[in-house]
């Protein structure tokens, strides 16, 4: 976070105003209509790229349960990093976009990263940090502290929620396996 970046407020406002198209379903598998790679490529071209960046292929690598959310986060980040501030800043935005979307994918739903104030701030700060930037007017120390606070609180919440979810899923499976559940209850017809 050595360099000073844009004002945080500008980025937060931009995220809050993310056009719905950027939250559309990524096209892979049987569903979806947004071609994430094309969306990100448009941002790179606007930033001055003249050829297709080979590193874009990273986006298309699937295989985790969070792929859909990762791609949707990449679309939101593409919108964020298309802010005019970055145009003249000579930033290598693609590695930052790839790293931030992969890191947040298991933790924050893209929609929530747009709708929820703290998650917006986390996304904006994370994107800046991956670019080696800090919000305008903040010290390096303050920027690092603020990002850590936001992300660790969210991580703790997600961890607790997933533990509770696992516990409940186990209880449901146990209940359904009991003799009493197996014996079923009266239906007036059978399928």
């Amino acid at each position, binding site marked *: 976070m050595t360099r000073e970046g844009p004002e945080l407020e500008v980025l937060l406002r931009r995220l809050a105003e993310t056009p719905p198209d950027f939250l559309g379903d990524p096209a892979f598998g049987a569903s979806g209509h947004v071609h994430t790679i094309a969306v990100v490529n448009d941002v790179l071209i606007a930033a001055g790229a003249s050829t297709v960046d080979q590193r874009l292929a990273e986006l298309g690598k699937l295989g985790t349960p969070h792929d859909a959310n990762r791609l949707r986060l990449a679309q939101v980040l593409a919108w964020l990093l298309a802010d005019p501030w970055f145009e003249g800043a000579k930033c290598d935005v693609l590695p930052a976009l790839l790293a931030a979307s992969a890191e947040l994918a298991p933790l924050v739903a893209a929609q929530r990263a747009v709708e929820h104030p703290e998650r917006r701030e986390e996304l904006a700060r994370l994107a800046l940090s991956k670019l080696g930037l800090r919000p305008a007017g903040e010290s390096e120390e303050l920027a690092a502290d603020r990002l850590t606070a936001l992300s660790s609180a969210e991580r703790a919440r997600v961890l607790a929620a997933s533990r509770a979810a696992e516990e409940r899923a186990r209880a*449901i499976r146990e209940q359904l396996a009991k003799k009493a559940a197996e014996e079923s209850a009266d239906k007036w017809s059978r399928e």
Partner: protein
Amino acid sequence: MNDPEPEDEERYPLLGEAGRELMRGLREHPAAPIFRNRSGNRLTSEDLARVLEIEREVGTSQVRWAPGEKPGWLAGFLARALSHVPHYRGYGRTQAELEELPSITRGDLGRDIAAFVPDDLPIERMINFRTSGTTGHPLLVASHPTVAASYLAFHKKALRHFGVELRAGAGRVGVALVGYQRKCFTYVSVTPQMGESALVKLNLHPDDWRDPDDRARYLDALDPEMYTGDPVSFSELVTLPLRTRPRALLSTSMTLLPETRRRLEDRFACPVIDVYSLNEAGPVAFDAGDDTWHLLQHELYVELVDGEITLTGGMNPWLPLVRYRTGDYAELVFHGGEPRLVGLAGRAPTRFRTESGELLNNIEVTHALAGFALPQWTLLQRRDGSFDFRTSAGNATVLRAALLSLFGANARIDVATDAVFDGKVRQYVSELE
């Protein structure tokens, strides 16, 4: 793990003395079959209040939406599913148009049914419905006694279309569920929302009876107001020398051919209602006799995805469906603001090749068999283009002629009329596809 058999208090929490006596009489009747199992309604007084409330709702509700529109309840249902149901929460959306969401299949439910139970519903009294399906992948469906009990509300709605109001109350048998299988879950219970009238689930297969003639004696003694079953069990029922008459027959699970239906109507002089029902969704629609299937559930949205009946919503809060592909095919038509199904064809369409190379959809085969009272049948087209038709009734020569008129005079068709089926089967298979 300590997993005790349930007690009667758990099976029938509201059981009164009259209901207990009625059940005892039905079990101990001299002509009674061997009841192999026990089961109950499991309804508490709170459950019963809920079931009665659902019945009132269903009685006054209408299934309505116009083409290109969505019913009013759908947006709220989706928002809740996306926030409260683990599987749908995994989509990472808090709001969405239905069409933006992926569809799910039986395979998704089979992988982890727990992921479809909403976070905020109590799970202590959940029950399951186990289904084998015709594809051999067993599935455990999460449900609840109030859901099971609410089937009746939808049956009543279908019956009302044919002018039948169920009346059986205390001391009477409301329904006999008849099966015809080598192995069948059988028991006696009572229905609290019908004044503790009895529900008797029995197997017409002779192996379940001390004397096969006991079947008619026992059923006459029951004199049930309604029978539910499938074309196979009803084809056995029609052969029994019954003196009593039900007020309605309700058929599920398998294709009911028009001729089978006509024979049953002639024999029992009552409406015979074909209901399209799924363990995953409950009773979906019934054949209204006007060439359309009327939808039964006012909070079940039906769309067609590549012709496949795809369901959202549904009567089971423990298994909220979002774009569930049923594996069944039909067309959706609109009568005013009322959506209906036409040409319900059961499982995924199979195409058969005629002698001249034309491809025929399996519905054509079903139509060609409309004049026969076949309880069950299968048709296989072999790799070499020849056919194997198997059924458990009918005249082989006449059946073969009907199939030849469909597939070509020189088509090679083997017909067996002594096939033995046990349960649901995959009706149409082509090795050419």
